[in-house]
């Protein structure tokens, strides 16, 4: 069970969180004309990297904030966690 540092609450066990997938996906802007391909990429296409992965977790049994977690998908090491609106270098 992972131990995730929530930037709002502190370190909490994984069972307080729900996984939310790739955090680098950006929703196309509203009312913007885009191709089928672009839209499909946004809805369906995800990278599944081995190694560093920036992902979303939702602290559903805590502060209910969505947070971003930089995690190694093979070792499960968590490097850093960010608030939803935090800038990531």
């Amino acid at each position, binding site marked *: *069970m992972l*131990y995730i540092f929530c930037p709002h609450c502190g370190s909490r*066990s994984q069972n307080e969180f729900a996984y939310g997938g790739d955090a680098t996906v950006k929703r*196309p802007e509203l009312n913007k004309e885009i191709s089928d391909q672009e*839209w499909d990429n946004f*809805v369906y296409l995800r990278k599944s990297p081995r190694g560093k992965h920036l992902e979303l977790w*939702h602290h559903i049994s805590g502060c209910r904030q*969505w947070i971003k977690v930089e995690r190694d998908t093979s*070792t499960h090491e968590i490097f850093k966690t960010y608030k939803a*609106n935090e800038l990531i270098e």
Partner: protein
Amino acid sequence: MSQDFRLDNIGMVNRNKKISFTFNGKKYFGYEGDTIASALIANGVHLIGRSFKYHRPRGFFGVGVDEPYAILQLERNNERDPNIRATEQEIFEGLEVKSVNCWPSVNFDIGAINNFLKMFFPAGFYYKTFMWPPSFWYKIYEPFIRMAAGFGEVSIKHDKERYEHKYEYCDLLITGSGPSGLASAYAAAKNGARVILAEDKPRYGGSLLTSDVNIGNQTGVEWSEKIITELKSMSNVIVKNRSQVFGYYDHNMLVMSERIGDHLPKTQKYLPKQRLWYIRAKEVLISSGSIERPLVFGNNDTPGVMLSSAAKEYMKVYGVLVGKKPLIFTNNDSGYETAIEFKKNGINPLILDTRKEPSSDIISEAKNLGIEIKFSHVVVAAKGYKKVKSADIAKISDNKKDLSNIENIECDCICVSGFWTPSIHLASQSGNKSEFNEKIDAFIPKKSKQNENTIGSANGKFTLEETINEAFDKGYEVSNKITENNNKVSMPTVVEKKSTEHDKFWCVPLPKGKSYKRFLDFQNDVAVTDIELALREGFRSIEHVKRYTTLGMATDQGKTSNLNGLQLVSDIENKVVPQVGHTTFRPPYTPVSIGAIVGREVGKHSKPTRKSPMHQWHEKNNAVFVDAGVWLRPRYYKQGNETLFEASKREAKNVRKNVGVCDVTTLGKIDVKGPDAAEFLNRVYTNAWLKLPVGKARYGVMLREDGIVMDDGTTTRISENHYHMTTTTAQAANVLSHLEYYLQLVWPDLNVNVVSTTEQWAGAAIAGPNSRALLMKLFPDTDVSNEGLPFMGYKEADLFGIPAKIYRISFSGELAYEVNVESDFGNFMWEKIIDVGKEFELQPYGTEALSTLRIEMGHVAGSELDGRTIPHDASLEGLVSKKKDFIGKRSLSRSAFTKPDREKIVGVVPLDKSTSIPEGSYIVKDPNAKLPNPKLGHVSASCWSVEYDNPFSLAIIKDGKKMIGQKLFAMSPLKNKTIPVEIVSSHYVDPEGKRVRA
């Protein structure tokens, strides 16, 4: 039987407390503190079971978790508990245990015939013997395998014992209370760290209990007692015995199973039987010790052959002799310690040492005691079937290949010592790679992966001085890192006997012309020949060899067999062990009961149960409940001997005719507030929201980004910047997460807040032609006329002094209102409605009637919005705005969603107007078509229409609109029914929607 093998003046069992127990129906005595193994050995019992494959007699091999043989079935309070290790289970008054894997009895076991058929059970026999003919599988092979496989029988009755889970956090977790565990715990605790020290056995001390050493002028036992007593008195330390740390998981979380009641006749009233600890430790010190390795020789599985360290522990801890004519077979000095212990207790052992001319303190001591020693000697084969009676021994050449001077000598046990294997399981589970240490011929952890260190003999340190020094240092170092304290305890002086090097020799060659079985894995009957065969057949990877031969599998996970297996593979392949590598260690280290893993989450406790504030009223009024997610909802209110069908029909009819009331508290409710709330709803829902006036409700549908309907419900504008959203009962939590996702991550610029208010409001739906008349009586001061409170209108009103909210919305298709009050007043509201409603023929209705009403109205619900439908399929395309953008809109233009024959919701009526159509039925054109019969769609929901008094169903079928009027068939292969049907509009009742607006 008297305890012929019990020693008088040695051991730690409580001689003042005699305990009786039965083994295979026969009564035996032991003492408090005995295990089943020690008590049976004291009684001279060595035949305890039969082996897995060949049904060869099985005795005791070890004294703890490593035991491969002595697996029993425990019976207590009419419960069966399989897979009990006799070496770990303590006896208690009235304990009943049975052998497994033998029939009709352990003494005469028919399965032993397998021993003579062993040519049919070579390595991989599963894959060979049972391959043909295929028709043999069900009737012959499978029943045979099922009968033969497994250790014991599990009880199928409900386990009445209580198991608990506990979460704990600490600075330092130490696994094992041997010398390294004790020393490091002491050093760390004294330096202010919060320490948990876990010991799997009942007694603390590990190897100190049995070794002849001196620490700080005290014996090992005295020193360990002193340390434990002090640790127990410290408030920053938790000390636990009978507790096995069996798994090392991510982010330094370890799981430990504590056996609280297993050694007692009956679990104590306020304590669980077992407790599972989830421990999140900042640092871990793995001090799990090491396990002695067997030596491999002919018939080395005969009862009476056991580890020499086990024989020593039976003497020193339990005061029990494993034999009176012992043969010690060793490749290192450890065997001598056991021999000396025998000698001290008046027994004359014979030592066979594979080494040529070793010399050390301990060997000299043995010589001085007059113990007979034969160097360069080996055991060729054990003799005796149910117990060792003698052994063939021989001199072995210097190159360890040739045997000479084979002679038979009498003995009643053979104590083997093939040096020590560090228990690196936990370190390995943590992610540690291991490295092969030539000096000890075993793997030790290489580099810490998580915050863990392995110490003591688990790390290949086999002298006490080294161990204690390392442990004190590590305990200080690790605690200093956490507490930043600098309190160092002084190191005690250590006195121990010096040993010399072990012999790199584990497997005795076969003498010419003999074909003794030489076993590597005792639990799975894997012999040297099986490994040879597997390699001959081309299995190279050690992981493949393991799975093909079952070496190292099953409940003991090869604790005694793995390294000898690796050694053999590398010898055959002309490699060295590190080239062969080892198989992966996975949790659990020892078997854990399913009960402990499940904990309290059984039956009704497996998930929370949510009840509405009106629940007690429903109970009192004969409601029959149904699970709706985690909610309990009244399904119908039973009158007399009514069936579900009759009751729901009565309730639904009454809504259509008079008025009904339904508890709708379970609907998800979300408060949406903020200056951008309208804009937000406009993006979330498919229809337009910017112009909804205050005091009005609107029905909305929300999609996922892939265009599939996620949920529907009404949202009401309470005030300028305040909306009250409702969701379906099932999707409430998902919708909230969905909204939070968009507000926090996608459109953080929107100034909106959302919060769940599901539990804050109690809701009652009042539906039926009499509902307005009832409302006028309930709210005499409020104008609830069609003009005052029109369809989709909203008003705040006063319900006998209680503030209430009235929403004029309808799921039943009748003139209907939903009244909400604060949860605490829910019951008050409900009773008032029931009371005032009497004169209007009001009846409460449950979810079954609710479904009937919505189905015949063609209102969609979860069975239509099933994660596969887009708005068009559910005839909701009128709600999809063409002007504005919203979540999922772009997906609706994808080709599959726009094709002309896209599925659409329709109504289905059986031609005979009497046969109900099973939900899930397929709609087909020709019931006799060749299989697979092309399906047009499926029936999503069925009811008995109370309006027309005949069955009616909703279905989602291809090109549904064009199908209306056609005669098709509903087929249910499950119910074996084919029903001729007519397709009609899904709006079966009041298609113009006049009633809701009346």
